[in-house]
């Protein structure tokens, strides 16, 4: 019985594409219409007068009139070819009435009727976490976003983010090869890579994870789409992790939405001096969970302990001078002059250690003459 229904829905796909693309009907109305017309084919072929009559039972006359108008207009403009083109690109559609529609989204205040998907959907029953933060991030933020993304994904948690510059992309890059996978929620159509420089990540997401969007394929990344996108990120996640955020930033809006949706919010603390950690530190003050280390975050999320043990940083054994240089560095860039002053090594010795540490990947030169600790 259930199977039969699913089957019907699948056959109905072309018409669902049509229905999902109707502009001017809100998500709420679309979902209500779905209850009325489980088969979109019926809705497509129904007589105009009959449709109006049925809608009037539900809504006021004016509203019924407008919606009928939109549906009629939509039929006239409809072309099957474009759907074939999208399908060729590998774009699938997930709608509210389908079993595979993410359950988490059913529970938010304004669930989208349809999601366009490239790649996979978040697995049902798998835990999810969103990693979001500033686009213009520091090396510190980027490193931790990547670390946390990696550790979560390896622990089997799906990482949700917006594929934006900075923290979002770093978190997803870290998570891409883990078992949890990672999913990018875009503010543009799924076939549009925005920002362009994340092309590599975009292709990886298609292969190893998934790209989701509420917008029709081909939609440009307009500013007005992004707040709606943010509600999906927090909606799809069980917990929301804010890595770096200035005060009054978009990431804090996502955090607010998460709280409204009843999700847990964690924030990575940062230096009091750092502008980019102000937002996070304030969230912590307001009661957000504090991330003391990626491993402790896992514990808090109740992930089994084995992982934690495996992932604790192995202590790096270095020779004395190397250790002096290494321990002088952290995730804040230091100039070579500063390192020289702090380590009090001779210049040739310092240079020897810097070069060998860099060759071993222990440290990284991020701008000419500025060094930070490398990724683990």
């Amino acid at each position, binding site marked *: 019985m259930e199977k039969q229904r699913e089957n019907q829905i699948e056959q109905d796909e072309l018409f669902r594409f049509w229905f999902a693309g109707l502009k001017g009907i809100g998500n709420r109305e679309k979902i209500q219409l779905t209850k009325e017309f489980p088969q979109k084919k019926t809705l497509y072929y129904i007589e105009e007068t009959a449709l109006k009559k049925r809608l009037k039972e539900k809504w006021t006359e004016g509203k019924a009139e407008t919606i009928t108008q939109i549906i009629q207009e939509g039929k006239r403009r409809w072309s099957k070819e474009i759907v074939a083109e999208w399908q060729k690109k590998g774009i699938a559609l997930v709608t509210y009435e389908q079993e595979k529609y993410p359950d988490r989204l059913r529970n938010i205040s304004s669930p989208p009727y349809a999601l366009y998907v490239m790649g996979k959907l978040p697995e049902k029953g798998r835990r999810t976490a969103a990693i979001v933060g500033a*686009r*213009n991030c*520091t*090396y510190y933020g980027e490193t931790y976003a990547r670390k946390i993304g990696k550790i979560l994904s390896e622990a089997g948690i799906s990482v949700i983010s917006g594929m934006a*510059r*900075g923290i979002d992309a770093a978190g997803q890059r870290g998570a891409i090869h883990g078992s949890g996978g990672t999913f990018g929620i875009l503010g543009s159509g799924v076939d549009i890579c925005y*920002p362009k*420089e994340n092309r590599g990540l975009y292709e990886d997401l298609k292969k190893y994870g998934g790209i989701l969007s509420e917008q029709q394929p081909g939609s440009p990344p307009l500013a007005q789409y992004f707040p709606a996108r943010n509600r999906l990120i927090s909606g799809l996640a069980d917990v929301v992790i804010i890595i770096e955020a200035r005060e009054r930033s978009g990431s804090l809006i996502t955090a607010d939405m998460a709280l409204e949706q009843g999700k847990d919010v964690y924030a990575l603390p940062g230096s009091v*001096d*750092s*502008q*980019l950690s102000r937002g996070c530190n304030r969230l912590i003050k307001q009661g957000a969970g504090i991330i003391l280390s990626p491993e402790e975050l896992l514990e808090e999320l109740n992930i089994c302990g084995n992982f934690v043990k495996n992932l604790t940083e192995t202590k790096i054994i270095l020779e004395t001078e190397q250790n002096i240089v290494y321990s002088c560095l952290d995730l*804040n*860039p230091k*100039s*070579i*002059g*500063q390192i*020289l002053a702090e380590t009090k090594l001779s*210049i*040739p010795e310092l*240079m*020897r250690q*810097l*070069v060998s540490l*860099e*060759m*071993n*990947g222990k440290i990284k*030169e*991020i*701008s*000419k*003459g*500025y060094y930070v600790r490398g990724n683990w």
Partner: protein
Amino acid sequence: MFSTVLSASLQGMQAEFIHVEADVGNGLPFFHMVGHLASEVKESAERVRTAVKNSGIQIPPRKVVINLSPANVRKRGAAFDLPIAAAVLAANGVISQKTLVNVLIIGELSLDGGVKKVPGILPILLEAKEHGCVRCMIPKENEQEGRSITGMEVIGVSKLTELIEVAKKIEQEGEEIVWKNHKVSGERNIEVEDRCQGSEDFSEIKGQTFVKRAAEIAVAGEHNLLLIGPPGSGKTMVAKRIPTIFPPLSMEECIEISKVYSVAGFLDEKQPLILARPFRAVHHTVTKAALVGGGLHPVPGELSLSHGGCLFLDEAAEFRKDVLEALREPLEEQKIHIVRNGGSYIFPADTIVVAAMNPCPCGQFPDYNRCRCSEQEIRNYLGRISGPLLDRIDLCVDVPKVRYESLIQTDEEETSDIIRARVCAAREIQKKRYEGQKKQTNGRVSVKTLMEHCELDPEGKEKMKRSFETLQLTARSYYKVLRVARTIADLEGSEKIESTHLDEALIYRTMDQKYWR
């Protein structure tokens, strides 16, 4: 009567010898000039006639024909006034043609008979000497410039009448005596200055150890240098002091440099020769022609004016892209070819380029609290220095903000003289090593020659292999590291390139992989 006078004009840096012929004969009174003349040369007729008249000489109204030969060469400039006047006077019998044989005459006339200075005396006289013409009459203002060439007999004239007097004197007393007298009386002892102009010294820069070291390496091996640092950190200050650690100028180099300045018209009585290494700072709004040379009748640009010294490009990322691109070829060949339909011109351009730029548009990166630039903005900004230009820069160093402690420290910093002594020693080693080669510094020799002298020990080989893989060196940056390492070894007087030299070279490598492309 017919007469002929030897003169010359410049084609770029090359002198073109011109015979000025005059013939005075019967016919309608007429002053006719032929010989493929530019308009400024045609106008010369009026200047010459008036100047001769105002010098108190009556020329009978006869037909005068002037020819400038060879007739196929375009004649340009005002330097033909004086030779034309001399030829006319000789043709009229005012002075004797004999006195003008094998004498090069150059100068511009004013209407009152005064002789004015002209550009390019130095290269013209040098070439004249090569061709065996050792006597010349040039404007008084150019006399010192001409006298700087040993073996040249120079008479400076400030008025047309002086030329006539000299000619008459030669007739009476004999040419040997007159020329010799002039030579002795005017001989000037020129000494090349030991230091660059100005009183700058490296000891005035507090701290910035690494930057000073990079400057030392750059000069020692003739490597081009890129300084990256926030505004106010002292990039310009360092660049200005770089000429103070150059090896002293030799007389040949001095003439070489002065030739360029002579062509550009920058030499005068007070400064007849450029005696110190040039330092040219170029503003970022410079045009391509002003930087590498150009114009309808090409003149040397800033690049050639800094020949033998240092060209400083401040705010390198703000330069127009095509302007920077124009530096590629000359930096490779140390000279610049300019082709116009009048011919092709070559100007020298053997200079150390020092470029300075901010690490990002606001200049504060990687200070995340102050820098508000996005990654994309930073990438775009750095991308303005094109890869091909960066390929010609061997050394790159960060100029950090000066810390208060180093500002107030009272330790004696190394003076330019001390640094220069090391540079000179390193240059000597290179000169010996590359004996017989055209280019004799590590930064300029061909890769093939370089590799012959860059034998690495097993440890060094291993290090280069590893760094090639892990630090993402390209083939080109690999050679750049070796060049710099060779210079560092030379500075220490080490025969072999040691591991520490490689370390230092790696620290100063340009960041083409991380930032650029």
